[in-house]
C-alpha cells in the first residue's frame, strides 16, 4: 500500500511547477515518460501528444482498465508583438480575467519571465478601479529588451508551497491526477492490464482522452482529475449549499456532471470499495463541468466510465489549495479499486 511520502511530494512539486498549457504539454510529458518507462510493457506518444502506457498483467483473463489523467493546464498564448517587450495574449482554457492583473508568468519553453500589470489606480476614477480590466487591455511584459514569439505559450509562475496539511500550487488540476496515476502504474496488479492515458488538451475539449480510449479499447475507465471545492463561507453567513466538494472529506466520486452521467455500476462499486476499506470519500455535487470520462464513455461502442477527483480550492487561478489527506485517500481508493476490479467486472457481465 503506497502512501504519500516525500518522494511522491517531490514529484508532485516538480509536476505542478512545470509549464504545460493545453497543446504544448512537452514539459510534463518528459517527466511522465521518465517516470513510467521503467514499469511499462508498452509506451508511446500518440498523434496528439498524449503518453499512452500499458502495463500487462500475467493471468489469462485480464480486465483491461483505462486510467486517465490530463497533463495540460490552463494558460495563455502570445498572439501579437506590440514592441518593447510588450505582448498581447489570449487565454487557453477557462480563466477568469480577474485573476490576471499583478501576476508573474513564464513564457515559452525557455521560461522567459514576464508580468501582467495594469495602469496605476492613482490615475483612475474610483469607478474605474472597480471595473475589471478586459483581456484586450492586458499585456505580458517581458522587459524592454525581452523577446518572445507569437505562438509561445505562457503560464503562471507560481512556485509550489507547503502549508501544514495543504499544498498551495498552480495546476493542481490535474498534476495531482498525473502524480496519482504514475504511482498507480508503478504498483499495477497481475490480474489487470493497466492502460494509463496521460492525456492532452482536456481543458479545451477532452481531445487527448477521446483518441486514447480508441487506442486502448478498455473494458472500463476511470478519469482521475481534480475538482473545485467551493467550500467557502457565504457573505451573509447563510449555509453554503453549492460547495461542489469540500476539502478534507476525501476523494470526490462523480455521479453526474454537465457532460456525463457516470456509470452507476462504477459509482456504486467505488462507494462500496471505499466503505469496505474504511477510506473516506465524498460525492461531488451533481452539476455542470466535465472530465475526460465524458470523451471516454462515448468512445468505441461505449465504455463504462467514472470520475474520481481530488478536491481543490480556487480552480484555474494562479494558486489552488489542496489537502494532502485527500490525495492520499484518493490514491488509496484507486488502489483498492484496482484490486477489486476483476471480480467486479466479471459480475458485471
Amino acid at each position, binding site marked *: 500500500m503506497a502512501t504519500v511520502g516525500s518522494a511522491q511530494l517531490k514529484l508532485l512539486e516538480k509536476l505542478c511547477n512545470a509549464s504545460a498549457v493545453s497543446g504544448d504539454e512537452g514539459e510534463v510529458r518528459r517527466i511522465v515518460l521518465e517516470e513510467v518507462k521503467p514499469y511499462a510493457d508498452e509506451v508511446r506518444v500518440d498523434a496528439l501528444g498524449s503518453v499512452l502506457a500499458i502495463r500487462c498483467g500475467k493471468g489469462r483473463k485480464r480486465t483491461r482498465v483505462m486510467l486517465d489523467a490530463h497533463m495540460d493546464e490552463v494558460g495563455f498564448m502570445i498572439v501579437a508583438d506590440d514592441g518593447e*517587450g*510588450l505582448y498581447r495574449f489570449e487565454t487557453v482554457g477557462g480563466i*477568469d480575467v*480577474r*485573476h490576471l*492583473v*499583478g*501576476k*508573474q508568468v513564464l513564457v515559452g519553453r525557455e521560461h*522567459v*519571465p*514576464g*508580468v501582467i*500589470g*495594469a*495602469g*496605476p*489606480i*492613482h*490615475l483612475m476614477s474610483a469607478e474605474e*478601479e*472597480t*471595473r*475589471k*480590466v478586459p483581456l484586450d*487591455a*492586458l*499585456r505580458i*511584459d*517581458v*522587459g*524592454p*529588451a*525581452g*523577446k518572445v514569439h507569437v505562438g509561445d505559450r505562457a503560464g503562471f*509562475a*507560481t*512556485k509550489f*508551497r*507547503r*502549508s*501544514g*496539511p*495543504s*499544498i*498551495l500550487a498552480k495546476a493542481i488540476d490535474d498534476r495531482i491526477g498525473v502524480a496519482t496515476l504514475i504511482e498507480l502504474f508503478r504498483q499495477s496488479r497481475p490480474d489487470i492490464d493497466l492502460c494509463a492515458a496521460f492525456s492532452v488538451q482536456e481543458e479545451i475539449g477532452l481531445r487527448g482522452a477521446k483518441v486514447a480510449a480508441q487506442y486502448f479499447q478498455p473494458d472500463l475507465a476511470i478519469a482521475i482529475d481534480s475538482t473545485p471545492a*467551493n467550500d*467557502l*463561507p*457565504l*457573505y*451573509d453567513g447563510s449555509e*453554503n449549499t*453549492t460547495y461542489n466538494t469540500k476539502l478534507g472529506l476525501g476523494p470526490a466520486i462523480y455521479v453526474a456532471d454537465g457532460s456525463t452521467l457516470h456509470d452507476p455500476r462504477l459509482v456504486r462499486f467505488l462507494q462500496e470499495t471505499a466503505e469496505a476499506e474504511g477510506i473516506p470519500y465524498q460525492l461531488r455535487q451533481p452539476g455542470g463541468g466535465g472530465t475526460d470520462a465524458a470523451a471516454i464513455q462515448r468512445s468505441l461502442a461505449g465504455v463504462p466510465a467514472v470520475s474520481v477527483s481530488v478536491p481543490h480550492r*480556487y480552480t484555474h*487561478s*494562479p*494558486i489552488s*489549495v489542496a*489537502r494532502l489527506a485527500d490525495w492520499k485517500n484518493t490514491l488509496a481508493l484507486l488502489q483498492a479499486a484496482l484490486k477489486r476490479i476483476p471480480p467486479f467486472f466479471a459480475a458485471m457481465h
Partner: protein
Amino acid sequence: MTDILPFLKSLVSVSGLSGQEGPAAELIAEQWRSLVDETSRSRVGSLHGLKRGSGKAPRSSVMIATHMDAIGMRVSKITDGFLHITNVGGIDVRVLPGAAVTVHATGSGEQLPAVVGMPPARFLPESARDGVVAIDHLLADTGLLPREVARKVRVGDLVSFANEPLDLAGEVISGHTLDNRASVAALTVCLQELQNKPHIWDVWAVATVQEETSSLGAYSSAFELRPQIAIVVDATFAKGPGANGWQTFPLGKGVGLCMGPNLHPFLHGKLKELAERLEIPWFLDVTPAHSGTDAVAIQITAEGIPTALVEFPLRYMHTPVEAVAVKDVERLGRLLAEFISSLDAEFLDTIVWD
C-alpha cells in the same frame, strides 16, 4: 560603485508594511552602517543615518527622505479558518484574487503562506458579482485547519505580498514594494558615491515610516532633524500598458525632476542644471497642486523647509509586479551624491525667491 541590484532584491524580500517597518529598517541600517557616521531610529521608527560633512560646525544639513514602508493587507475577521482582509495603504484590489501572500501570524510568531481567494459570484451579494470583487468579500486562505488558524492568527495581523522579485530583460526588476524601496536603494548608491566625494554639508539619510498612510515619518523626522533643505526620492508613473497620459514617462530613459507648489523652484532649478551638466537624462514631472509624496509633509514642517522631489519611473504602481529600470535608480543615486557634493557654505544664502 558596487552593483545595487542584489541589495534592492533583498530590500523587497523583507516585510515592512506601514506601521511595522522594523524588518526593513534593520536591513537598511545594516547596509548603511559602514556608509554613515551614526544611525538611529526616530520615536516613530524612521531610520536616520548621519554622514557628517567636512565644513566647520555648525554645519548646514540636507535630508534625503525615502519612505521604506509598504502597502499590504491586514486580517479583519476570521470565519471557519478563512481570513477576511482590509487594506494597509492604497491597495489595488484588482491584483488580489490569486495573489501569493504571507500572513504574519502573531499568535504563533510564524509567517504562514497563503493565497487570496475570490469566492464564486453566487456567494456574493448581487451588487458585488460583476466587476472587481471588493476587498471585503475576498478571503485569504492558509490551507490550515480552522482550529490551527484560530490558534495562530489574530485579527490585526499583517498580510504581505509573497512573490519574489523577477529579473525582466533589459535590466528591469519587477516585484512588490519597489515603491519605494528602490528609492532607498538610490539613496544607498548616493551614500556609496559620497565615500569618495567630499561634501561640506551634513547629510541625513532617512528611511521614513508610514508614507503610504499619513507621512508620519516625514513630518516627525523633518521636525527632529531640522534640515536646511530636503530632497524626497519617490516613484513616478512609467509609461506602459494602461498608463500613457501626460503624467507618465518612459521606463529606463532617465530620472524625474518634479516641480509644483510642494517644491522649491530654486532647488528644482539647481537639480536641472546639475543633471544637464552631468549629462544625466531627466524629464520634467509637474504636479499642479499635490505631489502625493513625503514632500507634502516636509515642506510644511517647523517653519517650513525648502524641499525638492526627484523620481524614478515605475510601471504598475501599487501592484505586486511593479517594474523599475535599475539604471534609473543608479542615475538618481549619482545625481543626489553630486548635488550634495556641490553644496557650499554659501548655498543657503543663494536660495531666493524672484
